[in-house]
């Protein structure tokens, strides 16, 4: 065991890599935010301790109801995202590297269009006179336009679309490390396709599913623009209520109380998840079943039930496949087609089409002569591109956003990745508490973090500085980095490191030559999530910069005060082309280097 080498030193010294993350979040998140939330326990006028705000929280059924709606929406979003993302991730992980990299570009498409543009794309695509309804009617499938938005369906489409790339990336980085020989070995031992998948491959991929589910669920809890623009009367998210309290009512105390309600509820869910399947799938080893951790009854029940469900799923699949073959027997004169792969390909194609749909729409719209984002576009003009490229405002906003996001993402990696190593590999006291702290920046609404940071920065003289913006963005990016890296480490075979060590490599050499190359995809995914989190962030930017330094989301938001015009589509298209070119050339260089 690695621990034996350090027996002489106290155990906690070996845990130092987690300290930067804890200190970083403690200093820039916990301390300022706790001060703000503490207001919820004080009387506004006298400053005395009071429970009044919490009493009010439960006096009206409204807040608990909105909380329930928020959890329902986040829960369903997670279900749909995982269902859609799993086949794609599986397909990518089991394809050749060349195909995987090409398809990944498509999966990542939603990332490069700002949330504002994406949401308006859905409004126009799904509206009563939108493209989809027009096609459905033209094909005679429906007579009347369908209500695809301003209801639950619209919210699900928008949120699933926004969060699916996150899930695919997380799961691919885990699945890549699954040894392809294991399902093959199962087949050799007589398992049919269904059994081999459900009983061997699927359990091995669970850390990815768990990590993706956790990230998607918690991110979804904080959504408010998408549900506000695509939802109806019943789709009110708790973040909206908090923002109303903070901005319109200027009631920070009560806004803080509602935030505490959200935080506590989310942490309870996280705790239960952790007990039932969490740490055993996401971190540590499969602790519960191997007796290393505490075998708690919930986990044992979960494992027992899980095993039977998987067995059943495997049987169902094999029965269906068997029946299919009886109805359509394989023709001996033709090579046996891999039918399950064909079904998988079809499903993956559908999901990728869904992910790319708004982009297919945004690109043509950027050439429209109309002053609105509308379908069908009226061709042809380049004036929206000219408006973008000629404007120093847009240019500097783009450059600034790219730079802030890059630095913030590096910082988040630097702080988050070492912590992930400790959380994934070591047992330590208070691990759940550490995870809770690391996840909290995703649960606490951005506006709370923004105000807290403003007061904190004012004391440090950081208000209006890019450093302040970078630090603030890194705070909300760290959770993505930690969870993603933890997930990929879970499937990483630590014996490889030990082998390197026994061959004389020191720790740094092992990390640099063995570990990092093997978890590359996971690290890239983590970096991308951190980058996008910063690149698409508006609230913290508005507060910290006071509007003085423009970032791209702020410029887009500013530009669409009266209407969302096609400049935004042009900006998104440019970014898309830029990022795709960047990735393709990096890929080209890498391949050339590999060939040499």
């Amino acid at each position, binding site marked *: 065991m690695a621990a034996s080498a350090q027996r002489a030193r106290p155990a906690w010294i070996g845990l130092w890599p987690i300290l930067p993350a804890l200190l970083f979040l403690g200093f820039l998140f916990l301390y300022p935010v706790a001060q703000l939330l503490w207001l919820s326990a004080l009387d506004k006028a006298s400053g005395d301790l009071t429970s009044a705000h919490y009493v009010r929280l439960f006096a009206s059924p409204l807040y608990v109801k909105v909380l329930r709606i928020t959890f329902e929406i986040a829960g369903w979003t997670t279900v749909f995202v995982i269902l859609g993302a799993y086949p794609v991730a599986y397909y990518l992980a089991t394809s050749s590297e060349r195909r995987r990299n090409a398809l990944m570009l498509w999966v990542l498409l939603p990332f490069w269009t700002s949330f504002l543009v994406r949401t308006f794309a859905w409004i126009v695509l799904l509206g009563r006179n939108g493209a989809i309804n027009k096609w459905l009617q033209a094909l005679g499938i429906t007579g009347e336009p369908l209500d695809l938005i301003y209801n639950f369906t619209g919210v699900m489409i928008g949120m699933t679309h926004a969060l699916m790339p996150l899930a695919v990336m997380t799961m691919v980085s885990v699945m890549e490390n699954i040894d392809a020989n294991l399902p093959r070995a199962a087949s050799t031992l007589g398992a049919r396709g269904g059994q081999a998948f459900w009983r061997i491959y699927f359990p091995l991929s669970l850390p990815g599913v768990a990590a993706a589910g956790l990230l998607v669920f918690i991110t979804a809890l904080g959504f408010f623009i998408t549900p506000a623009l695509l939802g109806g*009367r019943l789709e009110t998210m708790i973040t909206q209520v908090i923002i109303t309290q903070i901005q319109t009512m200027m009631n920070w105390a009560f806004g803080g109380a509602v935030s505490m309600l959200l935080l506590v509820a989310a942490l309870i869910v996280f705790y239960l998840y952790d007990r039932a399947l969490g740490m055993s799938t996401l971190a540590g080893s499969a602790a519960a079943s191997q007796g290393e951790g505490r075998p708690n009854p919930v986990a044992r029940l979960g494992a027992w039930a899980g095993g039977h469900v998987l067995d059943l799923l495997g049987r169902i699949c094999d029965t269906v496949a068997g029946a299919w073959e009886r109805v359509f027997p394989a023709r001996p004169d033709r090579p046996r087609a891999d039918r399950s792969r064909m079904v998988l390909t079809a499903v993956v194609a559908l999901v990728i089409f869904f992910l790319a749909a708004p982009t297919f729409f945004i690109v043509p719209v950027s050439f429209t002569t109309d002053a609105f984002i509308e379908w069908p576009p009226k061709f042809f003009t380049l004036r929206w591109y000219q408006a973008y490229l000629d404007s120093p405002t847009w240019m500097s906003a783009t450059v600034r956003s790219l730079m802030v996001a*890059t630095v913030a993402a590096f910082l988040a990696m630097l702080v988050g990745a070492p912590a992930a190593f400790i959380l994934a590999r070591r047992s330590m006291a208070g691990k759940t508490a550490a995870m809770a702290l690391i996840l909290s920046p995703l649960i606490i609404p951005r506006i709370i973090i923004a*105000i807290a940071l403003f007061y904190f920065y004012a004391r440090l003289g950081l208000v*209006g500085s890019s450093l302040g913006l970078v630090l603030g963005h890194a705070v909300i990016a760290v959770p993505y980095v930690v969870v993603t890296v933890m997930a990929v480490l879970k499937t990483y075979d630590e014996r490889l490191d030990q082998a390197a060590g026994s061959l004389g490599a020191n720790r740094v050499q092992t990390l640099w030559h063995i570990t990092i190359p093997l978890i590359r995809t996971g690290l890239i995914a983590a970096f991308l999530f951190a980058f996008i989190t910063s690149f698409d962030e508006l609230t913290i930017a508005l*507060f910290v910069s*006071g509007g003085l330094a423009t970032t791209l989301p702020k410029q887009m938001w500013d530009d669409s005060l*009266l209407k969302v015009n096609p400049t935004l589509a042009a900006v998104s298209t440019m970014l898309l082309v830029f990022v795709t070119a960047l990735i393709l050339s990096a890929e080209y260089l890498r391949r050339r280097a590999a060939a040499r």
Partner: protein
Amino acid sequence: MAGKDGITRIGKLEIGRRRILHLAGGATVALTAPAYWRKLSAQEKRIVIRDPGGPYAEGFTEAFHKPFKAATGIESIGVAGQHEPTSLIKGMVDTKNYTWDMALLTSAACDQLVAEGGYVEKLNVTSPNIESTPKDFKNEYFIGNNIFTTVFAYRKDAFKDKKPPSNWAEYYDTKNFPGRRALRKHPFDTIEQALLADGVAPDKLYPCDIDRAFKKLNTIKKDIKVWWEGGAQTSQMLKTGEVDLCPVWNGRAQTVIDEGAPVEIVWQNNLWSAEGWCIIKGTPKADMCREFIKFAADPARQAVWTKWISYGPAHPDAYKTIPEATAKKLPTYPANFKTAIKADAAYWSKNKDKVTEQFEAWLLS
């Protein structure tokens, strides 16, 4: 663009191309830039003014910022801040970090900052133009610049051979005026509209009879296709015909009409509010802000920005220099203002907490 004329507008970062090259040049420059910004605003003869951005920014640059610099030597810099930035202003005052010196706010936001403990300065400034600005548009902390109003707009193609609705009662009459309707997912204005639709006389509107309003709202609840939350959403819906009828801020509807969509505004009993200048409490530049306020009260200057924003100038004399075609679109144009009702910010500042809670619970029930 403003940059060409050497006017610095920080929110827009129009410092010229050389600066941009610097930015593109390296991370160091951009990351140290903020220190530069702060130095800027600490310098003499320069004030930073928050506005809502977009067309406001363009309009105010031409109407105020350029001529103000020429006339007084004080540079005024427009910065786009978030919607209802009361929290940020509170933060600035609490921590004495004056990123902004003054702000264009709704009178409701200004009232609130006063009520929360004086986060804005008393104006203490006067001039003939300030004197002659109507009393309704100003108080000791606030001087109106532009009047915006909530009207409703309809798609003309949806009422081709039918009589379109012409008041709030008809907006609520789904039987005689069928069509897809929207309402704002917020009690402000929506409560008043329901009461007007139920026959409450405009002068008896406040204090609002909330129970009566909800009773009226119940009659239309299931017929509302879209509950909108943002202004850009309303212009988009009117443009694409997602709804046939929509309560909307007049400026957003005007944008759609100006783009040639078959949309018409109904001005009957529109509910107006004022947006105007406030000085942030404790700013060392308060006196320069007062200079700006005097300058901005000039009706001839207010007439200029109406080219960009379809909101009504606070000073009536502005109409002397506004072309008739533009004037007809504005809320303070006499024909449009005739039946207008002042949205009572004082009523709402007292009741919004309770009524908002009730409204949100009603939506979910």
